[in-house]
């Protein structure tokens, strides 16, 4: 039976205090803070972070299908999943698709990946991420959050079996955004709450429990994500679910992460699950999807490198002004520097493994790792005796650094670091998610996949260093 083999998650480093928004705009503040993708992140880069973490926990057979779910794909036309797959160094021989359009896209993608496994794929991956915008003064500007989750599905070595699933799809109007629009429109919220989210979630969960022949008391953990969180209370009341078993909606710490949210909540809940536990997962959009997981004994030994809890604690603030600049909601004076050129297609294809996967080379003759990949060894000058050598998961230390106040950045100063990798290899790259005063020679860093800039509509993805993030709380 198909199930979850591994999972990973990602909460970006920056937090925006909701009171800071309220103070500037003179609106009421929602409690807590929200996670904010940095100026160099988007749904693709965050999905890569979560997927890399999930893949680390799933050695063995390679993935044969990938679904990337988001309501904020960086490209409207061009397969975003292909970028995610290249950065995560998935093999080329996979089926890949983007799943988008609805906050329910993440759970729908998870079910599609499970179907791929049921149909014979050894492993299938789903990566879900969102980086949603809302207009200043919209309540969603405060309640949204940015984040990602990823799951590797398979038929063997599963830590949570999918026992049953149920879906419903209805056409109704609550949240919509046309091509070219930055901010979504929403209908008056009582309508969707009473006529859509509450009845559809109630119906789909009731249907699921009937299929699986279980009662509310059999559910150890309940993960329900609804665009309007009040629908969750209504569903709990209608189905007589135990509110104490509801998973943390992460509202005060992260915010609602769109298509990723049910997945993010699930990855936050899974570490505490015990073998035999049943977990209900449901998400709503134009309809609802629900699935029932049963935790296996293998889960007792499984821990991803990064936990949601750990990433919630590993954070730094962003001001509302910077948030507005990062999202280009607030236009700013352009720098007196030329705009960057778009990266060129042929060189990108030639260096796909380097650019997207941070795969360098190692000289077979002398053993020296080097990046970018070389043909003539930097150490022994031997020609064409190189093997691929991945650097993305290796830690490194700062050898020296530079603050660049002349280079254009949405978060000046640009910090450049020269880093030496554990096991060999040196690289000069940008540093992100860091506080300038804490940069020092000898500090440990790790690599992260980022969007450096966008030129002529081409998003230029590459790797940066960041301070090593806390692994577990």
């Amino acid at each position, binding site marked *: 039976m198909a199930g979850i083999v591994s999972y990973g998650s990602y909460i970006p480093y920056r937090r925006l205090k909701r009171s800071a928004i309220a103070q500037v705009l003179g609106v009421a503040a929602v409690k807590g803070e929200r996670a904010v993708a940095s100026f160099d992140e988007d749904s693709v880069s965050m999905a890569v972070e979560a997927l890399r973490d999930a893949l680390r926990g799933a050695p063995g057979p390679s993935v044969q299908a990938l679904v990337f779910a988001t309501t904020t794909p960086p490209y409207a036309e061009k397969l975003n999943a292909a970028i995610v797959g290249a950065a995560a160094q998935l093999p080329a021989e996979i089926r890949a698709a983007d799943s988008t359009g609805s906050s329910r896209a993440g759970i729908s993608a998870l079910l599609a990946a499970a179907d791929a496994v049921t149909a014979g794929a050894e492993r299938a991956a789903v990566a879900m991420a969102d980086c949603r915008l809302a207009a200043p003064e919209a309540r969603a500007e405060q309640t949204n959050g940015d984040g990602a989750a990823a799951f590797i599905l398979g038929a063997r070595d599963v830590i949570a079996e999918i026992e049953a699933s149920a879906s419903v799809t209805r056409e109704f109007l609550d949240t919509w955004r046309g091509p070219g629009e930055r901010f979504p429109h929403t209908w008056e919220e009582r309508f969707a709450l009473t006529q859509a989210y509450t009845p559809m979630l109630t119906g789909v969960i009731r249907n699921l429990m009937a299929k699986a022949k279980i009662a509310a008391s059999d559910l150890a953990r309940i993960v329900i994500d609804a665009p309007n969180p009040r629908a969750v209370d209504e569903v709990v009341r209608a189905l007589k679910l135990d509110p104490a078993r509801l998973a943390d909606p992460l509202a005060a710490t992260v915010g609602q992460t769109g298509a990723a949210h049910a997945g993010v909540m699930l990855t936050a809940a899974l570490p505490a699950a015990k073998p035999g536990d049943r977990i209900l997962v449901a998400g709503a959009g134009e309809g609802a999807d629900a699935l029932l997981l049963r935790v296996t004994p293998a889960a007792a030994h499984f821990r991803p490198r990064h936990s949601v809890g750990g990433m919630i604690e590993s954070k730094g603030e962003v001001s509302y002004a910077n948030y507005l600049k990062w999202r280009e909601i607030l236009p700013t004076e352009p*720098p*007196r*520097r*030329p705009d*960057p*050129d*778009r*990266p*060129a297609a*042929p*060189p*990108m294809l*030639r*260096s796909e493994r*380097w*650019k997207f996967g941070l795969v360098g080379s190692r000289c077979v003759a002398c053993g020296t790792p*080097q*990046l*970018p990949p*070389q043909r003539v060894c*930097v*150490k022994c000058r031997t020609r064409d005796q190189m093997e691929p050598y991945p650097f993305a998961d290796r830690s490194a230390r700062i*050898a*020296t*650094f*530079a*603050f*660049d*106040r*002349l*280079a254009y*950045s949405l978060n000046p*100063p*640009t910090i*450049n670091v*020269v880093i*030496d990798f554990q096991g*060999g*290899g*040196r*690289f*000069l*790259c*940008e540093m992100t998610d860091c506080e300038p005063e804490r940069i020092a*020679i000898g500090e440990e860093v790790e690599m992260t996949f980022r969007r*450096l800039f966008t030129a002529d509509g081409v998003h*230029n*993805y*590459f790797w940066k260093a960041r301070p090593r993030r806390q692994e577990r709380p």
Partner: protein
Amino acid sequence: MASNGIKDRVAIIGMGCTRFGEHWDKSVDDLLIDAAYEAYESAGIAPEDVDAYWLGTMGSFSGLTLSTPLKIPYRPVTRVENFCATGSESLRQACYAVASGAYDVAMAIGVEKLKDSGYSGLVVGQAPNDGTLGNITPPASFSLLAPAYFKKYGLDPEKGKDVISRIAWKNHRNGARNPKAQFQKEVPLESIKNSPKVADPLGIMDCSGVSDGSAAAIVVRAEDALKYRKDPIYIKALSFIAGPGEGPMSPEYDFTTFPEVVASAKDAYAQAGIKNPRQEISMAEVHDCFTPTELVLYEDMGFSPRGTAWRDVMDGFFDLEGKLPVNPDGGLKSFGHPIGASGLRMMYEMWLQLRGEAGPRQIDNPKLGMTHNLGGAPGRCVSFVSVVGRSLG
């Protein structure tokens, strides 16, 4: 590696140099015409006496950049580019051309017009690429030297800042005595130290001047030189080294040296027969693109033992009145840095100093001068070193 040199085989018989700075009223054509005609007049020759030209520039392309405004009558004009060492490279090519006997009279001329771009700092275009080449500006890439040098030699950041500020102070003091410099004003140490940060610890006053300008030299074989004038200067050494770019790839590189400079200085000293540069060199123009560069160069060129250049800086060893004046004309810092022209501007100061024409900044009886020109960044650069003298032998 054989590097035989052309000691005493080529002489410079005339030079020209425009003032460097913001030439809002002059085009590349104007600057080239001004520098070239000053050089013709300095050598006492007519334009048609020059057999071949080497034009150094980053921003303009092909020999037509020079032949068109000067109306050069169907002669060879080669455009050369080698980053910020472009001007020196054009001189090197012209010298080899006359030394080989292929031509009798050659001109090396460099030009750059940086102020027309509307951008801050230097802008270098890149060939179409995969978007992984990084986003580091020149001040930031040279600022990598500062924390590494300070840490290696035990200078706390304040002391380190004092040292690099004093280098800028010295160069401005020299430039204040030069009517062709971009900035002809002494700058108090405190203003240098407190100038707005560009790439910590570098402030704007640690950076060379972005400017427009042109400089030119006319070279002939040494045996012909006295036909043109009684006081030519002679090429003792020309060395040019391009590194394999190991710095950004090898953990062994520690950002306190330019191996390319060490190699080119060693080569040049061998060509010129110099054993102890600290004592034998009368003066030097070095590539002070940013103040930490000049600090590290002192050690790479053997002016100061490793780890001690900062003491020599503080002791005034490289001041105009010091034992080994460096950048007597103000350097890139105060004279300005129009890329293609800079290497020839350095040589222009040697031309003036060796012939006693440097006015208020004249060094007492110099015999051997040296120019050093660098392009690229720490760990991956090209380096040029020349030695010139006022007499043969």
